[in-house]
């Protein structure tokens, strides 16, 4: 603190402890949470029950504090000054005999409310301290370390009615592009058909015969039909070979595939 500011106090006759207390207040001015907090701190020096506090004395202390603080050219927030003005007003009310013509609350009422406010603030501070002194979760007592979370299983069930089923079937059966599925096989020789055909023919093929000669008559002309019939016959011949009915050979890559009945 600057020397000249310190001088401001010199004329006052203060005990060392008084001066230290005053300095502490001034130094801490930013530490106060507003005028009410400051008033509460000041009231503690009265060392009495907050309900029996002398509001007049408190108001004087506050005004002195504000006065000193301003002498120190300390910037004081507006609400400190508003409170100072109000306390000055309160002081006058308390000191002067009540004027019966005047409206509004009496000085005693105002003083009682201020005392109530201070007591309430102190009570909340004590309660906050008690609350924080309680055993706390995660510090003094603990929750389950390996929680097994509830898994939400969403089960979807599907449903259909008999009507849906029949309509579905009817829909397929009456499709515009509908063709009976036997007729679908026009350009397709199924393996079953090829197999049937070859089973009948193989008995007559004692010697090596080209697989292509087993294609049904007329099928080798149409490329689509030929492809299907060749594939089906080849698959059928593999099936027959597996069953031990025939033997298959191919001279070289891409050479004609030949089959013959397995000699007995």
């Amino acid at each position: 603190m600057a020397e000249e500011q310190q001088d401001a106090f010199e004329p006052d006759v203060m005990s060392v402890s008084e001066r230290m207390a005053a300095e502490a207040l001034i130094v801490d001015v930013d530490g106060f949470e507003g005028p009410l907090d400051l008033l509460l701190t000041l009231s503690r020096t009265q060392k009495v029950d907050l309900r029996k506090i002398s509001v007049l004395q408190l108001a004087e202390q506050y005004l002195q504090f504000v006065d000193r603080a301003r002498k120190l050219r300390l910037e004081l927030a507006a609400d400190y000054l508003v409170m100072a003005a109000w306390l000055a007003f309160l002081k006058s009310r308390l000191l002067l005999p009540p004027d019966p013509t005047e409206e509004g609350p009496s000085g005693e009422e105002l003083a009682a409310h201020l005392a109530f406010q201070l007591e309430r603030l102190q009570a909340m501070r004590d309660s906050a301290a008690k609350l924080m002194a309680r055993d706390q979760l995660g510090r003094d007592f603990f929750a389950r370390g390996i929680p097994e979370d509830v898994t939400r299983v969403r089960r979807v069930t599907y449903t259909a009615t008999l009507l849906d089923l029949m309509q579905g079937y009817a829909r397929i059966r009456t499709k515009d592009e509908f063709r009976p599925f036997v007729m679908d096989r026009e350009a397709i020789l199924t393996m079953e058909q090829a197999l049937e055909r070859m089973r009948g023919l193989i008995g007559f093929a004692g010697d090596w015969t080209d697989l292509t000669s087993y294609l049904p008559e007329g099928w080798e002309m149409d490329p689509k039909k030929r492809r299907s019939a060749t594939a089906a016959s080849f698959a059928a011949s593999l099936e027959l070979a597996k069953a031990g009915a025939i033997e298959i050979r191919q001279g070289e890559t891409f050479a004609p595939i030949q089959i013959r009945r397995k000699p007995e």
Partner: protein
Amino acid sequence: MSETELDQEESLFEAPPMGEQERMVEAILFASAEPVSVADMEARMPHGSDPAEALVHLRKRYEGRGVNLVRVGDAWAIRTATDLGYLMQKETVETRKLSRAAIETLAIIAYHQPVTRAEIEEIRGVSVSRGTIDQLIEMEWIRFGRRRMTPGRPVTFVVTPDFLDHFGLESARDLPGLKELRSAGLLESRPPPGMMPGPELEEEDETGEGQSELFED
């Protein structure tokens, strides 16, 4: 559901024996880090179960054990016994250090709930910063309550079940010193006589019904 319907259903599905129900409640509570409400337990247990009764048995069973059954609002949780906290240093979670303003604001909300911001400011004598409220909401210790049916319809703040859980409170009624504060009239919101400095009071006193509101919704 009407009572007759309930009766019918009860006769259709036999509830499991109480011993089994106790096991179920035990399993459900052990599995959860959060308190579980009786309604939630009931929904998960077989039809006709009475978790409330099973809880009575279970609570007795865990009396004096290393973990205890505790009530948190209308929910239940298993928590380690407070005298064994020293064994759990490894599990200790560093909570963000709360400012004095935040701690006081929290206490005011807990003791005065539902309370408006203006009322908090009136009690503390300073304005409440947004950050303080935000921090408490973020910690899930306070939440918005009902709006006041007064001009401006200001929002109110109430404490949450998480708050109760954190401080080991069965309900907000169990806040330390609540009764004394109330009988001393310190929880009343007294309108200031005439002009007073500081934040203006704008609401009527609703504190009386406040504490009960916590358990309504």
